[in-house]
């Protein structure tokens, strides 16, 4: 029994991002995932997995969009089902150890009883709410639950759990082992009237008070006979546990999307369903695109950016330090991943092509290496990315190759960038390498963006079309911290 909320039945799971961990930290996905999870580890894991497995077809994304729309409409029912499966967290695990077989046996029977209750609860949701759902995914799920969890089925389960309650008076069959010791203990059903026949059978009777050895021998024999039953019961419980976990994982993504949407609405930020385009498109439109993780960190609205670009392979973003360039780059990466896993996106509008894979190459802060060592480290990371690159991929560079002088850095950066875009790879490059940037002035399929700076030196954190300027605004930053800070102190 499987739910197919994430993929249509028989659809293959999308490939995982080869550099998932780097993406997660460079794009600050942790914040985003925490907001989706709202404290639930399973949601976190499911959403992380989805984000780092970008879907590669418009149909697959559409399937999730439809399922998500249904979930948003019936969020109470979806959350109810999720809570039923999440009760798994409260079940204590127990271990089967040879010395505590009787205990394990009883725990297993009890566990089956609890899980059967969960199944009944799920059936009830299906019975009551099925007609409210319209998506293919949820309709199939409810049909399956009603079909497989019939009243007859619950009766069959009860017949076993009731029979296995009593550990006394066991009938056990056995054969002779290699040394003629008794082996292959199997519990046997006692037919009606069996006692009449057994009553006169010769017996070994032990003195319970005086022969503790024999008493524990009998207990061991009983344990040997019930161990198979216990392991079967535990296996059955494990099947059910896996089933609930599976269902939980399928629901988790949608619960996460609902949670995130509600959070963004709290901050008054827009959330939209993106418009994915085929892989061969080179057009992008974004309106009010913002960094979701930044908003979650600041717990308030943040600045969004707009642009409509067509036939563009290379975006070069330059401009003031602390001017919102990295934030912009992150918002672009986040939106790309969110779009490709069927999530809503942090923007008013986001129209973009699907990409085979997304890679980030961000400057590492706080690097204590010697210069040569740092360049070596940077190039090593680049080489890892290159191992996985393919046409149709997308790479976000954030101040790459600044660990050497500008001339060398620009040259390496130019050579790499040029190779990528010529191989049909979309590149976003935030850079201070002026020599690198100006080589693309007037080039085809290239857009220049600039961190906005007004006449009064005030940063707006807006990224607007604009060609590179020679200086970065480190002085601004200095002024803001020192001069303004002093002024504020004087007030």
């Amino acid at each position: 029994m499987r739910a197919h909320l994430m993929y249509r039945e028989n659809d293959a799971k999308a490939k995982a991002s080869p550099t998932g961990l780097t993406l997660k930290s460079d794009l600050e996905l942790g914040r985003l995932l925490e907001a989706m999870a709202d404290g639930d580890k399973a949601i976190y894991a499911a959403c992380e997995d989805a984000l780092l497995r970008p879907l590669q077809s418009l149909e697959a994304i559409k399937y999730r969009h439809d399922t998500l729309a249904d979930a948003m409409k019936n969020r109470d029912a979806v959350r109810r089902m999720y809570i039923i499966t999440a009760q798994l967290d409260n079940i204590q695990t127990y271990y089967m150890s040879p010395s505590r077989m009787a205990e394990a046996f009883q725990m297993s029977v009890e566990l089956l009883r609890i899980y059967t209750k969960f199944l009944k609860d799920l059936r009830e949701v299906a019975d009551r709410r099925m007609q409210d759902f319209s998506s293919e995914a949820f309709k199939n799920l409810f049909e399956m639950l009603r079909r497989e969890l019939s009243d007859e089925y619950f009766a069959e389960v009860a017949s076993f759990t009731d029979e296995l309650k009593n550990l006394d008076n066991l009938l056990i069959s056995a054969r002779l082992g290699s040394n003629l010791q008794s082996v292959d203990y199997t519990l046997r059903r006692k037919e009606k009237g069996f006692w009449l026949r057994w009553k006169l059978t010769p017996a070994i009777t032990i003195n319970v008070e005086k022969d503790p050895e024999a008493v524990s021998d009998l207990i061991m024999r009983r344990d040997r006979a019930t161990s198979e039953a216990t392991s079967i019961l535990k296996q059955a419980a494990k099947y059910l546990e896996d089933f609930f976990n599976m269902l939980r994982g399928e629901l988790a993504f949608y619960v996460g999307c609902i949670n995130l949407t509600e959070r963004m609405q709290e901050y008054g930020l827009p959330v939209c369903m993106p418009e994915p385009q085929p892989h061969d498109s080179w057009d992008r439109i974004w309106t009010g695109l913002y960094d979701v993780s930044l908003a979650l960190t600041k717990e308030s609205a943040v600045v969004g950016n707009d642009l409509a670009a067509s036939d563009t392979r290379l975006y070069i973003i330059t401009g003031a330090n602390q001017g919102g360039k990295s934030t912009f780059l992150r918002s672009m990466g986040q939106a790309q991943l969110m779009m490709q896993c069927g999530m809503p996106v942090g923007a008013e509008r986001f129209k973009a092509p699907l990409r085979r894979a997304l890679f980030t190459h961000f400057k590492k802060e706080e690097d204590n290496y010697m210069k040569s060592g740092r360049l070596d480290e940077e190039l090593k990371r680049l080489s890892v990315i290159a191992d996985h690159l393919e046409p149709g991929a997308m790479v976000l560079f954030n101040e790459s190759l600044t660990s050497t002088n500008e001339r060398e850095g620009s040259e390496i950066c130019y050579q790499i960038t040029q190779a990528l875009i010529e191989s049909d790879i979309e590149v976003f490059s935030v850079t201070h390498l002026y020599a690198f940037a100006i080589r693309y002035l007037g080039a085809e399929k290239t857009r220049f963006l600039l961190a906005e700076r007004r006449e009064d030196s005030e940063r707006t954190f807006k990224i607007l079309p604009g060609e590179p300027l020679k200086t970065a605004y480190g002085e601004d930053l200095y002024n803001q911290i020192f001069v303004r800070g002093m002024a504020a102190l004087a007030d």
Partner: protein
Amino acid sequence: MFYSILFPTREQHEKPRLEREPDYFKDLNLDQVFNAILTEEKAFGKKEKNSFGLEGFFYTPLDDPEIVVYRQEVLRELEDDSLRGQIAFFAMSLNMIEAAMAYVHDSLTSLQKWRDNYLTRGQLLDCVEKYCQAVIQFSSFLSGTGLKSAGLRGFAEYLKSYVESAPFNEMLGRAKKLREELSKVEFCMLIKFGSIRVRRYEGQEDLVKGLLNTFSKFKQDEERSFNVYLPEYAQDIKMEANLLNMVAAYYTDVFSDLYSFAGKYFYFEDETIVRFTNEIHFYLSWLKYIAPLKQTGLPFCYPSICGCEDPACLYSREGFDLALAARSLDSRHEIVTNDFELNYPERIIVVTGANQGGKTTFARAFGQMHHLAAIGLSVPGRAASLYLCDNIMTHFEREENIDTLNGKLQDDLMRLHDLLQRATSRSIFIVNEIFVSTTLTDALVLGGHMMDAIASLGTPSVVVTFLDELALHGPETVSMMSIVSDDGLATRTFKIIRKPPDGLAYAMYLAGKHGLTYKQLKSRLGKEQ
């Protein structure tokens, strides 16, 4: 007819062997080596002497080069991992059967009457079955292997004819038939508190079959087994025996067959095969011992053996102290290897040079490889030609013995005298720092006498001494020195090389260490000026 994997003939095998370690084991640290070899790791890291009775074989030097070659051939063949694995497995299987049979014999002849029961006879049947299976399998494996050594070839032929023999096949057939009958026995126990009843099984339905089916529709990807291993033997063996008696009452014919089978095959193992499975550990335990050393790159080789009449050329390339190497496995100290070569009329190596420079280690290595060669094992080194000695006379410096009340010099002389008395024309001498407790003049005189005596034996020997003069004793002596590197710090290299004695080496080493060599001093003083 094959008799033993350690000797070509039965007569050689029956000659007496040393029961105790030879005296030189301690001085040469061979006690460490062979204690480790004769010990096996038991459960919980406990170590125990193994029970194969191999001590005498490891202790006793062989007097016949033919036996040495017999063993070397077997050992060389056993270096093949897959062959050795098969042989070790066979030996282990039979060793276990032997141990189990010891218990069966003990039970069936015990004064505790209840131990004489069907359960013990079941164990005997199990042993017979396992024995037959192991022997047949191994024989067929050996016959498909092109064996080279006379020893293993001889055993393979012996085993082949044994497996084809009528008595073996009769035993095999009877065991099979009996097992077939016993496997049909099936019964039911009714366990109620304090009692247990037994009847034939009468087709009662399995209680839990079908349970898993009911739940299998929830199964996701992974399958995990929750089977708990509960040992399938009874806690109370007496109860098990009684239970089996009750079962036997329902199946009287089968159990009376079992009874007569156990009577006939009370002793069923072939002595020669059992001897092989014990003695093969002589080789297996040695190879196991040296395996980690070989892994670190230390070489072992099969020495050629110079007859006693003709010690024309002895040599060893890259030899080393085995006990030291084994101790250094954990600490990963690099082991320094050394060469030596003796060409007629050279017989006596006199080692001088820096203290702590590896002289004693060199002497030990020399002795060790001669003992190892003399019992037919491989020896440390890349290549070697060694002398087949009957005994190794070691004279190592000892703590003063308070009990004897003798002075140290006297003690030295008494021991030397004793050694010379016992030495034959085939005994090797290893003398390590003798006469240190007397004046130089005395030491020189006594040392000269000693050299005369050893030289007159005509056997290869090693003398470690601070007396440079001994190295120039005569044409039979070869001078070797522990050397220090000329890096100005006189770092010890633990290399022992052929070199005329150089009285300054030790002093220079110390001086260099304190920065007091001519050069060092000139330089230091130069700066002060």
